[in-house]
């Protein structure tokens, strides 16, 4: 059997037989505990700064962000964005339960269908599961309520993201996924697909010069719902005292 042949060739190269049981147990332990490595200090910030870092990074990567106070603000923000970009007010929407409570009737001109995306869709509205401030990256795990095609086929992708879903580093997002997601098929926590999206699609294949709008969306717009009081910009709310995070930037004189 080829599998045994390949594993045998590997062991011959490494000049040993199969690993002894206690070594295997140690490696299985490493898989189960998945230790973290160094996490860059740049995202170890108080909540408002973490959200601000996320926004800065999305904008640096040619995406756009608009903050709204709650889910009820989404229809107006979306309608105005589409009008400003000269886009039609029809869109395909993620069939996510969270979107059902949005008062769409406030903007009767918006037309939508809840389904996966098709090649003819021009605008998609996706549900943001999490986002990583470190690089301005959206994390979009596939689910019945979050089809992957919504990230790919339309020229314009709009993502509704709760501020409370923004984490500093990727590792925090993995831990949240491990804790919250259950995959019936594998018994694990990984869905079929997770896309990490950082800005709109692009290519530098023509003379190593960056051009936006390759095969995926040309525009990526985030509607950020401020559901996290602790994450509001300082001054907008009574901000809690900044928490000293492990590995965070040392205070002057520290």
């Amino acid at each position: 059997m080829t599998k045994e042949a390949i594993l045998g060739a590997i062991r011959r190269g490494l000049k040993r037989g199969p690993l002894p049981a206690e070594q295997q147990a140690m490696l299985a332990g490493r898989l189960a505990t998945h230790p973290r490595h160094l996490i860059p200090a740049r995202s170890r910030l108080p909540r408002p700064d973490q959200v601000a870092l996320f926004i800065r990074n999305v904008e640096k990567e040619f995406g756009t962000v608009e903050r709204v106070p709650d889910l009820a603000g989404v229809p107006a923000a979306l309608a105005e964005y589409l009008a400003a970009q000269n886009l039609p007010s029809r869109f395909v929407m993620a069939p996510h339960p969270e979107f059902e409570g949005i008062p769409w009737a406030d903007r009767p001109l918006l037309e939508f269908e809840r389904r996966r995306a098709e090649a003819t869709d021009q605008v998609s509205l996706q549900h943001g599961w999490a986002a990583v401030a470190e690089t301005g990256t959206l994390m979009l795990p596939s689910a019945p309520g979050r089809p992957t095609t919504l990230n790919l086929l339309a020229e314009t992708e709009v993502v509704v993201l709760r501020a409370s879903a923004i984490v500093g580093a990727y590792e925090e997002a993995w831990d949240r996924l491990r804790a919250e997601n259950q995959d019936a098929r594998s018994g694990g926590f990984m869905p079929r697909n997770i896309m990490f999206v950082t800005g709109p699609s692009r290519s530098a294949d023509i003379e190593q010069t960056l051009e936006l709008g390759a095969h995926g969306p040309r525009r990526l717009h985030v509607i950020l719902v401020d559901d996290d009081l602790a994450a509001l910009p300082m001054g907008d709310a009574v901000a809690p005292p900044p928490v000293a995070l492990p590995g965070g930037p040392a205070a002057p004189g520290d």
Partner: protein
Amino acid sequence: MVAITSPAFKENAARALADPGLQKALGTAKGAFLQRRAQAVANLPEFERLREIGRDIKNHTLANLDFYLDAYEAKVLAAGGMVHWCSTPDDARAVVLEICRKAGAKTVTKGKSMISEELGINAHLEANGIRPVETDLGEYILQLRQEHPSHIIAPAFHLNREDWEADFRRLHTDLPADRVFAERRDILAEARTKLREKFLQADVGITGANFLIAETGSSVIVTNEGNGDLTQTLPRVHIALASIEKVVPTLEDATSLLRLLARSATGQDFSVYTTFSTGARREADLDGPEEYHVVLIDGGRSNMLGTDFQEMLRCIRCAACMNHCPVYGAVGGHAYGWVYPGPMGSVLTPSLVGIDKTGLLPNASTFCGRCESVCPVKIPLPKLMRHWREREFERHLTPTAQRSNLNLWAWFARRPNAYRWATRAAIGALGLLGRGKGAFRSLPLAGGWTEGRDLPAPEPGGTFMARYARQQRGARR
């Protein structure tokens, strides 16, 4: 498998240096990757420590590769995927064809994958009546031109904008002949429209994998265009091609390596799309492939374990080494004569296809060390090239003249007094010959060296040893 022209490296290089189109393209590209990488690295103070972590993660995985591959397979199966173990490129080609046939495939879309180039998947599918369509923009134009990539992350590195326009006009004949390509953007838009049709037609999508994750059974791809995601999401069947050294233990390990990859490659903090695929479509999902196959290929990797070249298996294919290589910058990628160019190719190609055909590659280096200094997983590329040179020498594959000169040198080098005497004599002679000239344009027996540069004539003052001895005496006084 792709034909090997590495034995003709010298001729290839000479032709490359005399090719004005290629030299223009290399000139345009020069510096772009370097500046972007330098900027990204400067913005992450932890970068150097992350390189050490990246090296250690890969070393740990390679030392336990059998364990992690076995664990990986179990997780893929649990998520409803299949793993096909293939020792040789032949095995892998046969498996891919078999999956495509079972799926009744007529059109197969492909994401950019160097292992696919290594295996020659396209030619094999075509020969069997299946149409492969490359969807990465750079790979797409190369397929139109019937060429191979000249760079591992920027396949069309050797082309100029004029080439794109000319090829699109020549081959997209259904579009108005007098259409205008005012901007690069217009070329991109045309390719997008053309490829959209293909994405929707395809029965099977084939991608590579930047990483495989043992903890979860996931394959990871990294792109900026989104073509890899369309390739693996829309067709009914997804095939991921991966060589055995792509596996890493956990999501945390992959995450640390991803922090290095995009910064080293394109100078981005993170690529636009980093995607983790785990198994086939779930019951209630509205999209995604119904079949998920991983073709896991040894293809010569296991032979590298336990040798000097095991370190090369840490490579994450970022291309920083070639972007920073003066030889690559002068001759481009095709001169190297096989799939992998630049310093990583000069080490890997002899390992995978044999030093007998590729003995010139490890010499295609100035040993300036820039490749090693930028490699995100700290592969000692110059040292490994030197190992190949030594092996090649031992195997008596070096041209006779070079060997006898080196033997002569070795005789003197083992006899310090004779060496000092001989160099003193030679320097004296060269000094006399070169007096007033400052440099030699050519020297007997050293034509290969002086062809491309001048040898400075020795300054009066004697050999290094003589000067050193004088200086030491002076210091003691």
